[in-house]
């Protein structure tokens, strides 16, 4: 097997409205996660560990950050004679004047790329989930049962099932089974096996079904392709995945999945996973080790190289270059690259995008522990300078790049939005 037989295509084009200000300037897949990495590093690392070395990334929304992050692909060892990551942006040509009109349309528009590589299997992945998986096992299962499509499913809480693509899988086989039914975001889910958007296709079938789907007006794998294949009685299998799956579609989920990295037995063990990221991106390779000052206090937290902690940090995740000055307190928060928390500032339960400075004595986030609920997360967009002493309560949203004159002197009350 000199040439790779599996082609992986990562759907990384979308932005998700619910992530709000975190995706104003970047696609979902490029959102920072895990204290130094990006969400897409999880599928990329999985692919690397699975020995799948031919990868295409379908990008559309604000792709610069993503392209920058992928770089040459060397971070994941994806450069070599038969190894590589190709970024496939939308394009115009003689036949086609469209943007990517959906995930399935994005793949359809790049079928010449796909066919050129002549793969034995095509693995379509979503670029925005946090999980570890050896795709080889799934590809093996797919080939053993001779499926046209094998889709991975994971069990979710029943009350959340209506938000996912739900598949009924034939009982009997531990690994998986023939899919009996599939419904995208059903009002009354028949079970709680949710699609991970990890789809292994037999290439000829994918070509066929994408062509049929072109007559439709919607072009999504979950909403259109899987139901279409079910309807036409293709051999669709469900593959059962049992490990941790982190979902980051909303700010609350993003925050919760981040918190899953902490605690005495983290649900996501990054040390064991060996997650890789591109250290060139934002120059994090130039950071010195984490420096904790004489008065620094850190508890149940993660911090990457380049952070300087002079104050107190609890239950939080700090990305490279975060500075926490003396007497500042950061709790239950995720601070992206190069945030600065000035003296006496206090942050609680916030997610703050890159390059934001919290002025001296400012109070940001829900400060009353007792009233805190999961809706109370405050999100700060990037490149903001929060004035000294300003109070921003819980559940607030601050858009990126707020002009200094626009900050209201009375601060932001619970749930307010500043833009």
């Amino acid at each position: 097997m000199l040439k790779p037989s599996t082609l992986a295509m990562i759907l990384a084009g979308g932005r998700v409205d619910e992530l709000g200000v975190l995706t104003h300037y970047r696609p979902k897949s490029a959102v920072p996660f895990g204290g130094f990495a990006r969400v897409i590093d999880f599928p990329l690392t999985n692919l690397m560990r699975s020995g799948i070395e031919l990868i295409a990334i379908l990008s559309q929304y604000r792709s610069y950050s993503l392209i920058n992050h992928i770089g040459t692909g060397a971070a994941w060892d994806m450069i070599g004679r038969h190894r590589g990551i190709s970024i496939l942006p939308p394009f115009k040509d003689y036949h086609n004047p469209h943007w990517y009109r959906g995930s399935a349309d994005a793949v359809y528009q790049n079928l010449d790329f796909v066919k050129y590589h002549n793969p034995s299997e095509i693995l379509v992945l979503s670029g925005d989930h946090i999980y570890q998986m050896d795709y080889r096992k799934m590809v093996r299962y797919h080939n053993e049962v001779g499926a046209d499509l094998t889709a991975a499913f994971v069990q979710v809480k029943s009350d959340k099932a209506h938000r996912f693509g739900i598949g009924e899988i034939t009982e009997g086989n531990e690994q998986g089974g023939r899919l009996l039914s599939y419904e995208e975001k059903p009002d009354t889910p028949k079970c709680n096996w949710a699609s991970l958007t990890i789809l292994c296709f037999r290439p000829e079938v994918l070509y066929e079904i994408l062509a049929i789907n072109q007559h439709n007006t919607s072009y999504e794998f979950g909403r259109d392709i899987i139901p279409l294949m079910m309807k036409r009685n293709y051999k669709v299998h469900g593959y059962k995945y049992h490990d941790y799956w982190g979902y980051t579609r909303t700010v609350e989920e993003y925050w919760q999945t981040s918190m899953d990295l902490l605690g005495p037995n983290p649900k996501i063990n990054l040390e064991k996973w060996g997650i890789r990221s591109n250290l060139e991106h934002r120059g994090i390779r130039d950071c010195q080790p984490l420096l904790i000052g004489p008065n620094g206090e850190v508890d149940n937290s993660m911090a990457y190289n380049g952070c300087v902690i002079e104050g107190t940090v609890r239950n939080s995740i700090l990305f490279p270059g975060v500075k926490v000055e003396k007497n500042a307190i950061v709790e239950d928060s995720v601070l992206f690259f190069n945030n600065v928390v000035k003296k006496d500032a206090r942050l609680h339960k916030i997610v703050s995008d890159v390059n934001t400075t919290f002025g001296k004595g400012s109070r940001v986030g829900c400060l009353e522990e007792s009233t805190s609920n999961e809706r109370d997360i405050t999100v700060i967009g990037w490149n903001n300078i929060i004035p000294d002493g300003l109070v921003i309560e819980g559940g607030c949203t601050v858009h990126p790049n707020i002009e200094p004159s626009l900050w209201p002197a009375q601060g932001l009350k619970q749930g307010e939005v500043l833009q």
Partner: protein
Amino acid sequence: MRYASKALVLLLAGGIGSRLNILVGHRAKPAVPFGGIYRIIDFSLSNVMNSGLTKVGVLTQYKPLSLMRHIGTGEAWDFTGRTRGVKILPPRTGEKDSDWYKGTADAIRQNIDFIKANPSQQVVILSGDHIYRMDLDDMISYHRQKKADVTIGMMKVPMEKIHEFGTGIVDNDNRIIDWEEKPKEPKTDLASMGIYVFDTQYLLNSLAKDKKEIDFGMHIIPRALAEDRVYAYPFEGYWRDVGTIQSYWDTNMDAIRPDSDLSTEQWGIRPNPDADGLTMDRPPARLASGCHVNSSMISAGCIIEGTVINSVLSPGVHVHKGAIIKDSVIFADSVIEEDAVVDLVICDKQVRVGQKAIIGHGGNKDTVNRLYPTHLYTGITLIGKKAEVAPGISIGRNCIIHTNTTSADYADKKTIEDGETL
């Protein structure tokens, strides 16, 4: 306008650095880890990169493998490209000159073909074993301004240390008019940092004169002084020779002292993240609930469940619950198990300190190491690479536990006394 692009760099990285004892047992001194994620040579290589120099030869001799792996393609310091590059220059046999490097000048002389193959106006000669930041471009431009044949980087050092250095007396124009190598009765406090800029043609002529001249400080410079234009380039700022265990430890501590001038990140010092062990492809340091960390530098991939005070930890160090690390330097992937105490210790890579072991026991720092009294005399204990420290054992001050020691090697010993070696 940069001048550096027309200069060639030769980095002397062959030194044994034997006073660093077991830290150089399996690696050359420039390859000794420093400051958590760096190796000593990163400072010289980064200075070269930040000065805009793009062609480098690294002269190796002693245990070069670890150094060669670390340098790799040179990509980490931006030395890859069509007209850029870093070459390893080990001693070799040939038609003539088939010998080990006998001294600094001899090493350069044996690589005259490399100098000729990379035409340059100046040759910059550096050593790879100091901790400092310096703009070599400025030094080269100074050298040209002075129309010097040789320019030597020099700095003032305390009088009591001057006997370790080559020293020079300068006139008002910084021209060196007198030179003494390691003087017993020094006449000046101006010391050579072992950093030279030579006009290339001058260097070639000078080296061709007498092959018995094997050392710059002892032979080449004194003669040049008498005949040619030799200038001092005054350097002010942070510069440390980390050639002894004490200075190595002390300089590491400077990385965490708030009032020290050493700041690797501000200086633009780059490690090689692709080297062995992928120092940076590790998750952020995880500081668990109940840990205590003060005045310390913690690299990515560390897990801290115990206490770390005033210490520098390389990537992947795991400090278990109840363990205490104080005033120590711990290299990559060492594990300190429950309730162990590590006090004033330099621990090489992949060391395992067993539960309840104590390293650095007692307050007696005056019993020097019996085998190496000149290496260990300030209380620091050394633990070699991959050594195991048996659970419950008590190890004193100024001790050495050798590389690859296993629990069985302790036999029935419950203690290793101050100054002993295992």
